[in-house]
């Protein structure tokens, strides 16, 4: 039996499940009372941040394989959704799911060789993949003499429905990811992922098919990242390769997850909410300096809580029980 290290396998007591359900119901009811477009958009953005950080967490948080290329799947999802909707007249929800499927179709062949790499090599390979995808979309039309991705001209989508629509869409995606993370964490797969993190060779020796497990996690992560990319494309109404394949998307996912705590269920939730909530009031007041302030805050938090906010709190809890 694989013993999970303390602080990592965080079992949710019944009370916590009830609390999570209560939060979910409250969030469903919020738009009925709050008609303010900005507040709903902001919450939608927080949900999106949590969902993205969760995608990264499922793969990199649990296995410790630092994926620096999720922006590729975000962009693939955005472009698949845009092209399906604009060219094919496919309905939105079907488009985002198909976008996710396209991402998985890329993730499996990309994962097969790259997931055999370890440490910095894996990070560099995924980063290169994301950059290559961006460049391919940018140059496709000119090189092949076609009119498909429209290169740097980007694609215009129809103006989307109300904020409530996007609020609920992201709420659902975020909740689904939360539940998946919860289920993965306590499944055989979850233990295997953590085992890969702790001692991959040992895990392999005792019969864990590590490559298969990593591919599963990578594909799940890619699927949902692409779905989120598709929703975001519809929300923004206009996409270009430089915007949806941007390395900033990757960096945001990594930082949110690190701040909250890698490999924890609540880490992405706390990290994404914390980062959005501190930056919102800051940029309005210090338009020129807020990026520096946020940088200092991130450093302070990481120094005070090296395992992320949730990770460190869990450690303290274990500490105080033990001593």
């Amino acid at each position, binding site marked *: 039996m694989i013993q999970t290290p303390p602080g990592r396998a965080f079992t949710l007591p019944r009370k916590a499940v009830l609390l999570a359900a209560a939060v979910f119901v409250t969030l469903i009811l919020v738009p009925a009372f709050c008609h*303010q*477009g*900005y*507040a709903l*958009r*902001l919450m939608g*953005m927080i949900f999106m941040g949590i969902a993205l950080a969760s995608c990264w967490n499922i793969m990199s948080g649990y296995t410790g394989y630092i994926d620096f290329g999720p922006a590729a799947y975000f962009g693939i999802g955005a472009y698949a959704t845009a092209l399906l909707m604009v060219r094919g007249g496919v309905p939105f929800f079907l488009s985002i799911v198909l976008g996710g499927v396209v991402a998985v179709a890329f993730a499996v062949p990309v994962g097969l060789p790259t997931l055999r790499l370890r440490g910095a090599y894996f990070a560099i390979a995924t980063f290169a993949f994301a950059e290559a995808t961006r*460049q391919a979309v*940018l*140059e496709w039309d*000119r090189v092949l003499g076609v009119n498909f991705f429209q*290169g*740097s*001209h*980007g694609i*215009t989508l129809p*103006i989307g429905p109300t*904020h409530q629509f996007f609020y609920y869409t992201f709420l659902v995606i975020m909740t689904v990811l939360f539940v998946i993370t919860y289920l993965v964490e306590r499944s055989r797969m979850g233990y295997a992922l953590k085992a890969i993190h702790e001692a991959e060779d040992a895990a392999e020796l005792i019969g864990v098919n590590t490559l298969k497990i990593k591919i599963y996690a990578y594909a799940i992560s890619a699927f949902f990242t692409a779905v989120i990319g598709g929703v*975001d494309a519809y*929300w*923004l*109404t*206009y996409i*270009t390769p*430089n*915007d949806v394949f941007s390395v*900033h998307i990757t960096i945001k996912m990594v930082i949110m997850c690190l701040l909250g705590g890698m490999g924890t269920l609540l880490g992405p939730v706390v990290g994404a909410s*914390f980062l959005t*909530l*501190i930056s*919102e*009031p*800051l*940029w*309005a*007041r210090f*338009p*020129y300096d*807020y*990026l520096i302030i946020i940088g200092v*805050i991130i450093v*302070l*938090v990481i120094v*005070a*809580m090296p395992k992320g*906010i949730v990770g*460190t709190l869990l*450690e*303290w809890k274990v*500490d105080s029980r033990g001593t």
Partner: protein
Amino acid sequence: MTRMKRVTAILTIVGLLAGFVVVPAARCADKIQFGFSVPLTGIFGKAGKLVLDSYKLWAKKMNAEGGILIKGKRYPVELVYYDDKSDPGVSAKLVEKLITDDKVDLLLGGYGSSLVFAASAIAEKYKYPMISGGASSNKLFDRGFRYYFATLGKATEEVRGCVEMLKGLKPKPKTVAIVGSDILFTSLACEGFKKYSKEAGFKVIHFELFPIQLQDYTSMLLKVKKENPDVLLVGSHTLVAIKTVKALKAIDFSPKAVAFSYGPTVPDFVKSVGKLGEYVFAASEWTPVLPYKGPVFGTAAAFDKLYYKTFHRHPDYVEAAVAAAAVTQQLALQQLGLQPPYTEAKREALMKKLHDIDIKTFYGEVRFGKDGANVAHPPIAVQIQHGKVVTVYPKNVRQTAPIYPMPSWGHRK
């Protein structure tokens, strides 16, 4: 970990969160709040600051007069703005914040095509007119929007003046090479260069778009040098123009003429490249020497003078277009006699008025086509001569004749 450390850590986080509770700005009914999102950081940060200065100058000018005079009452101008970090998602969010949270009366346009794309979609959704002076990509006008306008011409149109000027030169150039960075605005400029070059009877012997992140331009330009074109046309932003000029010198490549879609008119250009920038041409839509005149700022020259007095630098045509956008909305309000608060019905009336407007300003004539683009504005061409931007086309308004062919690097002082 000790108890003390934990307490410190928790206090840090709680303190950080609690320290920044948002306090809504107090509203005053007797003024008009204009909101906009503008890039102050990121790839458009430099240009975004110019846009901000331009709006500040307009607000200062209006407030010095006591505000905008509407139906006998003066309403001071207040600007509410945020940095969109050159990120379209943030830009959309901010415009939504301005409309629904800050509840500004009206909007002003931002800078950068992809940012304005996202921002104008929100403005259209909430029915707020948005006149931009800092975005001109053709696609912005293909969306069937009714609330979006621009004082600049379309990106492909902007470079027409440059090509027409080249056509009139003696000896007439025969071959052109076109290169540009692969982002929306500059690639459109390249397409404009191509279209008008063909119309002018030039042979396009090289066409290449390169990634905006490209660091070293020498190998890309060596390819062009090999083909030996008479003219090099560059779809550029300021930084692209600066890098191109430096690389041309480095590989000792001097075509008979070099023309940029954007860059040399920005003061930073001459500051960064110094003498290397001599003789280059650039597309423009406005210079202070043009015989334009109108309310608010007076003549083109008077606008330039006031700008210089306030910021100690001369305005570029984008800054003029931005101020003209603010002026246009203001004149429409005044002509309609529309006083705040601006309800949806009033904003719709303003939008309809803007579709019919035909005014003369320091920036030239402003008249919007059905798609919102300014159709009354002729493109011009400028050249750097003795470190100064001078107007060389069209002939009837030019300050001096263009210097052509450009002396080769070896024959310069």
